[in-house]
């Protein structure tokens, strides 16, 4: 019996504490969220996700399909096909594979197909350093596909969040009919930590159309039919009207569709955006550190250290990167004298922060090593002087 919308289900794993690798936790989170299709292609440093799914799907009851495809283009395409057949689909990859997937991710955006894409970031560009962490794909996940659009990207900082945020990625994909990225790094993917699995899991299942509801219109997030149920669905990556008929020379149809593809996300920022404030109490901060992913772990340690030295420092951790948590950044930076954005790239999130806080400075590192707390501590002191 299909249950639409929010529902609470028993966790698939027995509740309790597990010692897992980040990639394993991601696979378990997917299963907890109801993932039942995985199409993938091997790539370091994400392959353990595929291997864990392959092993676990085999032992699960019900309809669960794992397929290793011939390349990443095929992986994401098979996920989108499965999603329209009714699946909760996921694939995982890293930079070079993500580059191959981009066109079909644009297709998923245009056809409003729920799909989860895990990008375990490694040092690029190109083949780069396959086993080394980086945060250089922030802009690629946002702007990879051509044309105007919105996607959602989440940034886990722990193995626990590789589990929790994978569940959240599925829920957001189902809720908003949009591709959702889990943007991890090699460091968090290969880290081993405890993961607590609760008794129950909150999941969201996509809405199904009632009589006469079009699959691509009227509602901000329209209900989504599945193939094989007599809906005679027309799905196309071309500009289309609310019933899926191609409208490739209508200015009105193009404007209406492209606008809705964005506003269905941007009208629900409260539901999508999650940030975490650490040590941000008090009226004014000497310095605010804005960080995400693995780097936020080091930032947390560094902020704690400089506070012990008497600096009023705070940390804003971005759990959601896209859509960008502009309002949260604005509120905190307004009462911060200095702002520091440490990241394992040449300043991708920094520019977003600077849009609302021109005083922001970056600490950037692209040598394939994680940023350690001492580096951020020093950067904080320099930014203050």
């Amino acid at each position, binding site marked *: 019996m299909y249950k639409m919308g929010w529902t609470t289900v028993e966790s698939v794993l027995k509740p309790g504490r597990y010692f897992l690798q980040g990639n394993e936790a991601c696979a378990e989170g997917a299963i907890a969220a109801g993932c039942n299709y995985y199409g993938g292609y091997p790539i370091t440093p994400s392959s353990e996700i595929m291997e864990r799914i392959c092993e676990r799907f085999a032992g699960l009851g019900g309809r669960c399909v794992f397929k290793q495809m011939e390349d990443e283009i*095929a992986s994401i395409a098979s996920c*989108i096909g499965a999603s*329209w057949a009714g699946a909760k689909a996921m694939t995982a990859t890293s930079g070079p594979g993500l580059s191959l997937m981009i066109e079909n991710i644009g*297709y998923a955006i245009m056809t409003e197909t729920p799909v989860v894409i895990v990008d375990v970031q490694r040092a690029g560009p190109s083949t780069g350093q396959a086993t080394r962490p980086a945060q250089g794909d922030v802009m690629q996940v946002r702007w990879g596909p051509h044309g105007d659009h919105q996607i959602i990207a989440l940034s886990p900082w722990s193995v626990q969040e590789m589990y929790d945020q994978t569940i959240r990625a599925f829920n957001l994909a189902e809720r908003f009919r949009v591709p959702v990225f889990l943007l991890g790094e090699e460091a968090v993917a290969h880290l081993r930590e405890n993961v607590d699995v609760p008794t129950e899991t909150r999941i969201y299942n996509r809405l199904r159309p009632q009589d006469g509801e079009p699959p691509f219109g009227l509602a901000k997030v329209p209900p989504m039919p599945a193939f*094989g149920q007599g809906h*005679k*669905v027309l799905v196309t990556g071309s500009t289309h009207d609310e019933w899926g008929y191609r409208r490739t020379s209508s200015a009105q149809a193009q404007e209406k569709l492209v606008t809705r593809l964005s506003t269905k996300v941007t009208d629900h920022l409260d539901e999508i955006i999650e940030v975490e404030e650490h040590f941000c109490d008090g009226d004014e901060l000497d310095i605010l550190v804005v960080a995400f992913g693995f780097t936020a772990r080091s930032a947390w340690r560094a902020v704690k250290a400089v506070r012990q030295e008497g600096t009023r420092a705070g940390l804003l951790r971005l759990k959601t990167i896209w859509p960008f948590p502009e309002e949260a950044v604005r509120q905190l930076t307004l009462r911060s004298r200095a702002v520091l954005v440490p990241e394992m790239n040449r300043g991708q999130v920094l520019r977003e922060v600077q849009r609302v806080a021109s005083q922001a400075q970056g600490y950037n590192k692209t040598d394939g090593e994680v940023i350690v707390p001492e580096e951020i501590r020093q950067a904080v002191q320099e930014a203050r002087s």
Partner: protein
Amino acid sequence: MKPSIKTQGLTESILSFVRPEVFPTPFCPGCGHGVLLGAILRAIADLGWEMDEMLFVSGIGCAAWIPSPHFAADTLHVTHGRAVVFATGAKLFNPALKVVVIGGDGDLASIGGNHLIHAARRNLDLTAICANNRIYGMTGGQVTPTTPPGIRTATTPQGNTEPPFDLCRLVAGAGASYVARYSTYHIRPLIRSLKRALTHEGFAFVEVLSPCPTQYGRRNKLPQPEEMLRLMKEECVNLQRAEGMSKEELEGKTLIGEFVS
């Protein structure tokens, strides 16, 4: 439903398989794709199948428009070259779907060539129909991997210098368990073959030679559709008949029939 002037040529039995409001088709005068559209629907009608149990997946190009939006079924009109792998995901997750991929030679054999051979190797229960007009029609008549040597296209103004793929041998070599070739001239054996392909369990591939007078014909002194059709008929030699022919006699001929069944 009474056939309107727009859907003339489609008999009562298959009128319910189409969305009449989208007719006439966008295909040029003399294009073979409309004939193939009718042949596919007649094969489905002959089998007594319902459109509600079918999924048609197509990529980009003229042939991709055969099912989308004409067919009153679930249709997935995807990115260029990727129809086979979108279809793979849908079929794997819901094996009850009868999944048919329809694409042109550029779509299935050029940009999508890797997916085609892997689908054949995998031998998943899909039917792929390649409307081979040996040219990129929609983008203005450029050379494809099936364009014969010497043929003038927008990107081979002096004549094509590359040898073409024999798609049936390619797909058969990759492991497909049903492989056949016909043309839009050979309509009755084509419908018979499509029925066998649709009911075949495993990867079935049917190549259908389809004339393109607009892009291929005009550049090669064949602007008249009936002339292209006549030449296509003369070019095609049935497999059985070819057995008794010499190498010289078979020069420039294209074999039709069932290569793997």
